[in-house]
Each structure stands twice: as C-alpha cells, then as structure tokens.
C-alpha cells in the first residue's frame, strides 16, 4: 500500500491508532527484533518454567554417571558430580537471567535518576557527571571484579557490582536525551502552564526521552549475562551450589578435554541469549531511532 493510501485509510478511522500500537506494528516487521526476541523468549520460558522442564534436579549428584557424554538420558551430558548439564543449564539460565534483569533494573533506575537530574538540573550536572566520569575511567569489567571481590561472592554482590559498572554509561545516555528534550517547545509550554519540576521532568521530558534508554538496557542485559559468566568463571560470582552459566563452565574447566560438553553447551546457551538480546536491541534501535531509520 502506498503512503498516500495509508494516510487516507488513517484519516478515515474514527478511533485513531496510538503511537504505541504503531510502534508495535513497526517492531513486528523488523526481522532482527523478531529473531532476537524469539531466541530470548525461548530461553526466558525455559528459565521461568525450569522446575517443570528440567529432566533432573540441578543439584542431584549421580556418581555412577560422572562426566557422561550426551545421551538420550542426559542430552547435554553430565559433569564430574554426575549432575545433568541440561538441567543445570536450564536452572542456571534462571539465575543468570535474574541477575541480568536485576542489573537492568539497577542501572535503569539509578542511571535514569542520575542522568535525568544532571540533564535537567544544570547545577547538579557538573558534579554528577564528574563522578560518572571517574567510574567510567575504570574498564567496566575491572570495576565489577573489584566490587565483587571486595564485597565477597554472592548473588546480591554480583548484581551490585555489575549495576555500579553499567550505571555511568546509562546515566550519560539518559542525560543526553534529557538535554535534547528539555529544549523542546512542549516543555516550555508545560512550564507556561505552571507544571512543577517533577511533573515536567517525569511526565514530559523523561517520557519522551526513553527510546535510547530502552535500547541501552537490552545491551546491558546481554552484557550483564556475559559479565556474570566471567565473574563466575574467575570465581567471584555466585558461590556453589548455585548454578549459573558461568559457574557451570567454570566447573567444566578442568575436564575440557575429556568432557567438552560440560563447557560447550552452557557456552552455546550464553551465545544464544546474548545474540538474541543484541538482535533485539538492534531491532529496537532501528525502530526507535529515526536517524537510523531509512
């Protein structure tokens, strides 16, 4: 249908389409988003229904079936305690996704608050951004390792460490889009109607500045899962017996030659999740960012 036809059809509708519905329609036409979203959705469903789906208990030892190769019973093989890799990976996905989601929430909340405050209240800008600069001066993963190693290995500390490591960049992104939106005329119009700072900031500015943040958060999700795997691998992740992707791989490190499946399958799942999230983020960015849209 040509754009003219679309316009006419649009004019004729008594109840008009909301920007949100338009956005959904555009998303569903984006291949990267659909593929990435499906991959991610599969892993998400596996993680949420881990108890129902996993064939074994993730911590169930079976010393008669140690380091068994993939078979009809243990589809992904077993590790050196005879634990089923598939079941551990499914449960590990639950914890990895939980950590990823928590990091996204952490960086989403604090990054938005810090970014919004420094973009809107210009007096706070310098001090807040210099603090963020100081944090950004460390490589994110090094910062996360330092925080996790200092606080000790636990799920909360991993979330905290990755949250702190990813927040400065998020704050920058939010600040940048707040700086753009705050100069728009409808913000001035809202001020002319006597709206309070909080109302202007949250209802008028932030609501219109969310697109880059949403894209950023999908990448944070992916990199948090990767970074958590790395932290677990070097031993500052959630302590055993908790299963995470990184933890399972770390367990298999010593048997990589005899039993490559212990590291291979969780590694592939990480690949699928991160690829899925990155594709999802690319798709979102293509749809949300009009500069890239052709």
């Amino acid at each position, binding site marked *: 249908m040509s754009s003219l036809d679309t316009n006419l059809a649009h004019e004729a509708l008594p109840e008009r389409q909301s920007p949100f519905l338009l956005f959904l329609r555009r998303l569903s036409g984006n291949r990267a988003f659909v593929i990435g979203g499906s991959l991610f959705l599969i892993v998400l469903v596996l993680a949420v229904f881990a108890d129902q789906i996993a064939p074994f208990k993730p911590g169930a030892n079976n010393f008669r079936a140690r380091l068994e190769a993939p078979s009809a019973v243990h589809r992904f093989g077993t590790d050196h305690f005879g634990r089923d890799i598939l079941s551990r990976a499914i449960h590990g996905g639950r914890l990895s996704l939980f950590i990823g989601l928590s990091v996204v929430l952490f960086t989403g909340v604090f990054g938005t608050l810090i970014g919004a405050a420094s973009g809107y209240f210009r007096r706070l800008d310098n001090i807040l951004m210099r603090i963020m600069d100081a944090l950004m001066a460390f490589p994110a993963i090094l910062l996360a390792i330092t925080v996790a190693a200092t606080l000790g290995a636990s799920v909360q500390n991993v979330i905290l460490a990755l949250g702190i490591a990813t927040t400065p960049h998020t704050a920058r992104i939010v600040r940048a889009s707040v700086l753009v939106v705050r100069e728009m*005329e409808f913000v001035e119009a809202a*001020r*002319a109607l006597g709206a309070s700072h909080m109302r202007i900031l949250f209802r008028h500015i932030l*609501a219109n500045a969310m697109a880059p943040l949403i894209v950023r958060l999908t990448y944070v999700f992916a990199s948090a899962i990767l970074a958590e795997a790395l932290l677990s691998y070097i031993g500052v992740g959630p302590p055993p017996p908790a299963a995470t992707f990184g933890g399972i791989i770390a367990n298999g490190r010593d048997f990589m030659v005899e039993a490559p499946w212990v590291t291979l399958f969780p590694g592939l799942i990480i690949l699928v999740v991160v690829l899925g999230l990155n594709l999802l983020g690319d798709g979102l960015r293509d749809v949300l960012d009009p500069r890239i849209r052709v």
Partner: protein
Amino acid sequence: MSMLKVENLTTVVGSGASAPSVLEDVSFTLDAGEVLCVVGESGSGKSMLALTIMGLLGFPVRRAGGRIILDGDDITAGGTSAWRQRRGRDLSMIFQEPMTSLNPIMRVGEQIGEVLRLRKGMSADEARRRAVELLERVEIPAAASRLAAFPHELSGGMRQRVMIAVALAAEPKLLIADEPTTALDVTIQAQILDLLRDIQAESGMALMLITHDLGVVAEMAHKVMVLYAGRVAEMADVKTVFDAPAHPYTQALLASIPSLDSGGDRLVTIPGSVPGVGLMPKGCRFAPRCPHVKEACRPAPPPLAILEASQSVACLRPFGYVRREETPTHG
C-alpha cells in the same frame, strides 16, 4: 483599574551591574478586555518580554528590576514558587510552533485535562466534560472524539486550537500569545485570530499579542507597543500608530510593508540590523539606523514622552522631518 501593569521592567543577561540588557525600562498597562500588540523585528525583545512576564526566563537571563502587577497583585513579590502557581491559572501563554508545543505522547484530552485537574482541582470526569466544551469552544469539529487523538494526528491549525484550549482551560486573566499564527497558512491565520478575538471579548481577559506582522496588528490590536532593541520606541492606540506614527522606527516599519499600488518598485527596507546584546549604543538605540539622527540623540537614551493621551514616544525628533501640524491628526 488596569489588569496588567508593568513598571520599569529590565531584563539582563548574566550577573553584575554591567550585565547587558535585553529589555530596559519597559512600562505599560493593559486593561481587561484589551488587546495589546507588541511589534518589533527579530531581536527587539518581544519574546523576552513575554517570558519575563511569565516568569520563564532561564539562566543566565534574569529580571534585574521592575514590577509586574496583575489584577492588583505584584506577581514578582512572591518568589518563583508563587509565580509558578499563577501560571496556567492567572497567566497563560500560547507559543509560536503548534507542531511542537504539544507533548507528542500525550492524548489531547489528557493535556487539557492536566491543566483542569492541576489548576481547577477537577476530577477526571469533570475534566473530560470540560475538555470537550473547550474543544468545542475552539471550534474543533467532533470534539468528543478528538480527546483520544494524539497531536501528530492533527493539522497545524487544529493543534493551535488545542493549544488555545489548553491555555484557556483555567480561565487566565492574562493571555500572552507569542506569534500564534506565524507558523500557519494565511486562511488558518485569519480563523485563529478571529477565534482569539471572540474568546477574548467573551471572557474579558487581557491579551498580549506578540507579532511582527503589521497586518495582524491592524486586525487585532487596541493598543500597540513598538519595541526596539529592548526599549519601548512607541506606544499608542492602533489608529494613531497607523495614521501618525511618531517614532522614526515605527515609520520605517510601516514604510517597509509592501503595498498593492507600489508597482514594481524596490521594497523599502531599514538599513542595518538590531544591535546585538551588549553592543547597544549609549544613547537612542535606533540612532545608528535612524535617518533623522542628530547629535543630541547619542549621549543618552531619550525618555518615553507623552505626545498626547493615546501616544507616547521615545524620540527627540518625533515625526522626523515631518512637522507636527502637517500630519493627519485623529482624536
């Protein structure tokens, strides 16, 4: 008693006593039900005047002096928070760009309702009913069904009508319209101006209309204030401004309107441009461009002198070379 009384308003950029001014010593009064047109070219301080009265100046621009008295209350006295409380309720403003002055992700009904709920304390239901009335008042067809529309679904003229509805929602005493029709095409301009005039006559609010279109002035104004480089050049009722402009700048502005019978002549222009902020001449700010300038104009700015009841002018040589008795007089 006048609805709006502005006394010696001065707005500067930056801090300190030597901060350059964008508005200097602006005084005027405006009665309820009256339309004041503020004219001047770009950089003359028209929009700054609007923002100063609204209390919307942003750092580093600030009001350095003067009082703004609305309906007997000095609105500069209560501080920024009290001033904010008045916005939307006592003072309201319409902006130039209807395409960007509405929040793109809020439905029209919500944007009107927001003002009604915040400023009138209405419930969501009352606000919806009132919003329909307001949309009907600004002559939007099928008003009830438009409540759910998003700004991008409306045309420019429609959006400006919605803006007017939003601005009028809390029944302000003073409405400032900053070039409300500049971005619209000519037929829509006329409709919007008619609408503004009707609503103003009906509600009795004071209307301050900022424009650089002298056609709009002739159409709408009771009183005209000509601003030049942040100072009042001339203040008069509309008839006097068009029939007997006293300030050389006003004369030049009027002369630069192309007329139908000017044939193929070159358009009249005013040589030069408004001096930048901080580069103002010490005396009359129009002196460098004025065809009638003499030495006395240069040392100090000429005061705003009353020529007759309806006309005051800040010029040492009003009417230029034309002598007073040769100009047509009207009342």
